């Protein structure tokens, strides 16, 4: 069950769309992402002039980071990325401009090896310059004590 009973946070954010921003996906960004994660395909690394470059399927994760609204949670000392589902809807290419919007879907608590934890789940949508959805992302962040 995912109840937010007893959790103090800004409930007005629930379901509210927030514009995160527009981000240009450069060739350099794609190749650096690919190199740092140990990719070997030329289509990601851009090291074969005959193969057009596309971004690795999870590149959207570079863009949201700490840009989400603060839910003003009155619990915990430290937050971590707890999980993600990412659905690729279209290729992302060098020069694309991605616009991200996000909304807080739900908040809930549970207990684990590190004691009580509160989870905030966000839904984020990325569209390219043609208003085409390129990725749908559901992300979960956990806050707990140290």
């Amino acid at each position, binding site marked *: 069950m995912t109840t937010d009973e007893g959790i103090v946070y800004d409930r007005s954010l629930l379901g509210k769309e927030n514009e995160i921003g527009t981000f240009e996906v450069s060739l350099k960004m794609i190749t650096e992402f690919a190199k740092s994660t140990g990719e070997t395909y030329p289509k990601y690394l851009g090291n074969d002039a005959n193969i057009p470059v596309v971004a*690795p*399927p999870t590149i959207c994760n570079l863009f949201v980071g700490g840009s989400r609204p603060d839910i003003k949670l009155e619990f915990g000392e430290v937050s971590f990325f707890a999980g993600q589902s990412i659905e690729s809807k279209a290729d992302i290419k060098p020069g694309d401009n991605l616009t991200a919007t996000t909304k807080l879907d739900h908040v809930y608590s549970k207990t684990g090896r590190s004691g009580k934890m509160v989870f905030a789940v966000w839904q984020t949508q990325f569209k390219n310059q043609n208003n085409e959805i390129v990725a749908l992302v559901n992300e979960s962040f956990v806050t707990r004590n140290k």
Partner: protein
Amino acid sequence: MNNTPLYFEDVEFGDDIGPIIKEVSDQAVIDFVSIREPESEPSRFTSKEVAQSQGLPEAIVPGAMNIALMSQLLTGWSDNVSLLKLDVVFRKTVPHNTPLKFSGIITDKDESGSNNLECDITMENEEGVKLVIGNALIHLPNRP
């Protein structure tokens, strides 16, 4: 990278994907976090001290980087693989400079024409503890 083409007909329920072993170096993490923020401050991803101040034993691999590594298990299986959906849960923080075992297993095969396959995926440390678990939906073309 696997240049051997793989087709939908080649894959059965229960087929293994991988395993592959990878290790994430300190420098790879610095390179990763520098893509968006070249002048980034030390963080729990790049500094043991900052990590320890947040109750962690050592610097950890960023979640976004772990997801990229998990996706490579699938995209690296064959150049023919299209990754449609990846869904992961982090169960334990992932340290730098330690062998990480990535493996997958085919758990469903849609024979109705979509050519989609479902698989479980895991990342384990050397003790066999699952650090990341999840599943994925992938697509393979038919054999020409």
